[in-house]
């Protein structure tokens, strides 16, 4: 391949280098730590043990928020940002970066969801894992987004890569509603939706419900902080790659120019 001094065209970058300003980021970081501490106090001490499951049910205050933020928020943002990238009027590398950053945070939360679910399943169901529709579809979701993250690492023309990534993200998102409705569509060991059930009538009350919502709030704030940091890292990585390419081009074109001067 001939190396020329020309760079591949890149979609417009209509944004700054960071999602949050410095002050906002600090406020979010502090709010995240405080809310997680409050969650620990409520989840481990204030909330009473479950009448049937006993103390093992306290894992719910981590498992459910992690699942909700991963599925509905992180992968939702990835899908939305990917759609905005594919739409020509809003096309910008910002959406590609945002999609990638959100997917990585979502994968971390999905991994937590699976492991926490396993730790909850062992004392309650008697097994670490069951070939249950909810568990299997969630595991498939985890591997789909791992594949998406792997796909993002394949080098190429920035615009083509971003389009490819966006299409892959939208395909992966198809599994999210399947995970959500898996407990209704198939007979499962996993319990049905407690809060977002078809009747929208939450079967959880009092301090337990409050603790669950504190968990959702704490994980949401943590997600915002992690998303901002991962986005910043993506910007820095892109800048480094661009400088490396520029340097490689400069190194390859320099001797040729020198040789031409010598020949004339």
């Amino acid at each position: 391949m001939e190396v020329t001094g020309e760079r591949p065209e890149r979609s417009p970058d209509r944004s700054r280098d960071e999602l949050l300003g410095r002050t906002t980021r600090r406020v979010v970081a502090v709010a995240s730590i405080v809310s997680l501490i409050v969650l620990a106090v409520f989840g481990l001490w204030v909330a009473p043990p479950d009448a049937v499951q006993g103390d093992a049910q306290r894992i719910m205050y981590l498992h459910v928020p992690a699942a909700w933020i991963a599925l509905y928020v992180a992968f939702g943002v990835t899908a939305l940002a990917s759609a905005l990238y594919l739409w020509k009027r809003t096309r910008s590398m910002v959406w590609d970066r945002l999609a990638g950053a959100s997917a990585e945070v979502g994968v971390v939360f999905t991994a937590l969801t699976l492991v926490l679910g396993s730790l909850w399943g062992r004392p309650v169901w008697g097994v670490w894992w069951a070939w249950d529709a909810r568990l299997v579809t969630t595991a498939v979701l985890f591997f789909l987004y791992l594949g998406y993250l792997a796909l993002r690492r394949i080098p190429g023309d920035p615009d083509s890569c971003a389009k490819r990534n966006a299409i892959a993200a939208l395909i992966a998102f198809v599994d999210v509603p399947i995970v959500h409705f898996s407990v209704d569509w198939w007979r499962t060991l996993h319990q049905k939706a407690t809060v977002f059930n078809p009747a929208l009538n939450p079967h959880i009350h009092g301090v337990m419900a409050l603790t669950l919502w504190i968990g959702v709030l704490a994980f949401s704030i943590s997600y915002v902080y992690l998303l901002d940091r991962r986005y910043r890292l993506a910007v820095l990585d892109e800048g480094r790659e661009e400088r490396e390419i520029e340097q490689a081009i400069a190194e390859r074109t320099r001797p040729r120019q020198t040789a031409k001067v010598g020949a004339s």
Partner: protein
Amino acid sequence: MTDAGFVITAWTLTAVVLIAYVAMLFLRIRRGERSLDSPDPRR
């Protein structure tokens, strides 16, 4: 393992994963921002 053991394991694991991920991001961002000032981007 008792129920309490599973609960403590779950909460500790969550804390470790979140702290490790934040630390990894922090270190990679710091390294990236330092390399901005460096003339050689591969450093």
